[in-house]
């Protein structure tokens, strides 16, 4: 039987890879995809704990995380589309209007 | 342990074998059947030693040889990896769905009881929908990797159509889930063995006499759901009348246009395998799956009291045969539909999916819920 720690370490690794994606990529869509990757890493943690502690609540929380992630991806993509229409670019470094 | 694994592998092999062969034979039925319907002869030139077999040699031997020996062409500025991946992604869901479709009840050999279904998942029908939703990728990636405006147009239309009709398909099945009370396909097939009069309360004598002798198939309990599911399934497979994504006379060949040879054969075979999948799903959910009316595990028990006992092997063979006949009938029906009805315009397709099928499916769910509560209260 695979011990719980291995699942958690896998999940931490994917989360860290997602963070890399958010920090270094200069394409807004890839940034959003990395955020989805981070959410999935957390889902994996929840399911692993749910299995090892014998409680269904972990799976219910994952259900809600999926629903919220769907809503957030939809709205995020709509924002990306409207930003692209104004600036013709998907580079987060170029969107610096609010920077002082 | 090894024997268990061997039995599952044998079942999987048999199911795949039958599906792929049926897909090939459907290609022949399509060419020859459409020729009959259009008062022409169809393909009959290819022959082996003078035997042309009404176009069988042409479709089943000459066509695959032609497809597999053609030059494999990747558009010069297209994406090489995705261009090769797309046909695989189109074929994979159509074949994998068959893992949960039951083609018989149980087969008893010695003291081993074999469930005639490759994998009995407790999530049953949701697995079918999950694989169906993966089928969109074949279209999207195939269209994108071709670097061709017509391809992209066909691909975007096709994927929008598929995801719209997935919603209607899923909602129309909810009525069936409520009536039979389970997600597992084998249990839904088994639940269609009882007669309707077992569900009706005692006081409804007139209704019992009128329809109580029918087996409780999905088509009798959920007729609207069947119509919605049939329409949505035909739209999912992108067959006429919903075949604008590959519209032959409008956008050249839609997302197929840059594919030749073996890859086109995979798309083609995937489409026919989807026809078989849709037919098998319709059979299992609405027409009793492998059930023969009044055939129980030990023989026939007719509603007027007569019985005819049969050995177990005969019963199993009858049930598997019934399943095969029903699936072939629905495949034939979809092919007949293709050559009889003109295709929809794209905005008509979208309007049908969202403004007509979706509200009707929701209405079906509400009415089914009310009827179930009414029957249980009385």
């Amino acid at each position: 039987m695979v011990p719980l720690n291995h699942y958690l370490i896998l999940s931490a690794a994917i989360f860290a890879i997602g963070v890399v994606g958010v920090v270094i990529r200069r394409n807004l869509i890839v940034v959003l995809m990395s955020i989805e990757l981070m959410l999935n890493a957390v889902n994996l943690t929840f399911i692993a704990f749910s299995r090892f502690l014998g409680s269904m609540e972990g799976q219910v929380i994952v259900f809600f995380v999926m629903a919220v992630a769907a809503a957030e991806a939809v709205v995020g993509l709509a924002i990306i589309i409207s930003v692209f229409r104004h600036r013709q670019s998907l580079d987060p470094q170029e969107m610096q209007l609010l920077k002082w | 342990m090894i024997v268990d694994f061997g039995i599952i592998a044998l079942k999987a092999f048999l199911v795949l074998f039958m599906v792929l062969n049926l897909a090939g034979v459907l290609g022949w039925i399509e060419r020859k059947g459409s020729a009959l319907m259009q008062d022409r002869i169809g393909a009959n030139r290819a022959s082996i030693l003078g035997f042309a077999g009404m176009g069988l040699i042409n479709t089943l031997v000459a066509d695959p040889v032609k497809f597999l020996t053609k030059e494999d062409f990747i558009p010069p500025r297209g994406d090489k990896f995705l261009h090769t991946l797309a046909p695989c992604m189109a074929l994979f869901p159509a074949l994998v769905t068959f893992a949960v479709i039951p083609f018989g009840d149980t087969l008893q050999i010695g003291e081993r009881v074999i469930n005639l279904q490759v994998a009995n998942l407790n999530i049953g029908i949701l697995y079918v929908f999950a694989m169906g939703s993966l089928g969109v990728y074949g279209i999207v990636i195939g269209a994108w990797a071709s670097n061709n405006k017509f391809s992209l147009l066909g691909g975007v239309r096709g994927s929008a159509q598929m995801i719209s009709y997935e919603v209607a398909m899923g909602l129309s099945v909810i009525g069936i889930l409520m009536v039979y009370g389970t997600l597992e396909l084998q249990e839904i097939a088994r639940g269609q063995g009882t007669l309707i009069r077992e569900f009706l309360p005692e006081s409804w004598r007139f209704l019992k006499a009128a329809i109580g002798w029918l087996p409780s198939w999905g088509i009798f309990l959920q007729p609207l759901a069947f119509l919605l599911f049939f329409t949505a399934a035909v739209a999912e497979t992108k067959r006429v009348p919903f075949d604008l994504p590959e519209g032959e006379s409008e956008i050249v060949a839609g997302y197929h246009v840059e594919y030749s040879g073996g890859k086109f054969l995979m798309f083609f075979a995937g489409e026919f395998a989807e026809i078989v999948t849709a037919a098998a799903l319709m059979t299992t959910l609405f027409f009793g799956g492998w059930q023969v009316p009044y055939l129980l595990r030990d023989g026939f028990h007719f509603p007027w009291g007569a019985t005819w006992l049969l050995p177990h092997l005969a019963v199993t063979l009858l049930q598997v045969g019934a399943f095969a006949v029903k699936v072939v009938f629905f495949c034939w029906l979809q092919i007949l539909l293709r050559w009889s009805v003109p295709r929809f315009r794209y905005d008509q397709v979208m309007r049908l999916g969202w403004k007509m099928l979706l509200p009707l499916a929701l209405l079906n769910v509400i009415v089914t819920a009310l009827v179930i509560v009414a029957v249980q209260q009385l």
Partner: protein
Amino acid sequence: MIIFYTLAVLLILSSLMVVFQRNVVHCAMALVAALFLIAILFVTLQAPMVGVLQILVYAGAIMVLFLFVIMLLNPTSLEPRRGLSWGFGTVVALLLAVALAALVSHDEAPADPFAATELFGAPESLAKSLFTDFVLPFEIASVLLLIAIVGAVVLAKREH
């Protein structure tokens, strides 16, 4: 056992492809593969309902939406690879990964999981939890999805 380790290696490979591929469509397909692998992991962890929902919702709908947006915005130019910032980011992420791994490795974790009943992770138990204990978040989630649909339509509409 073997399944978990092969899935883990494939999962890390596809996540790396998501983050480091320069062609956006390749990133999206790598993410689809990663989501599919995570769904298989869910099924091995006795959560078949959540696993199939992951394929149905995440891999089957959300990623199709991503691909639509990518095809709509059509970024044909490959992103330039900046050595310094990519190296710096990778080092930071490695530090984060090591820190997280150290945090989550504890010795008193339950070594063998409890004996799962047949209904654990089945649709019936998930539905029971959703409609009894968690019915308020369930209804709020449906309102949230409605808000997301309306918001997306308003934001992405073409101004006249």
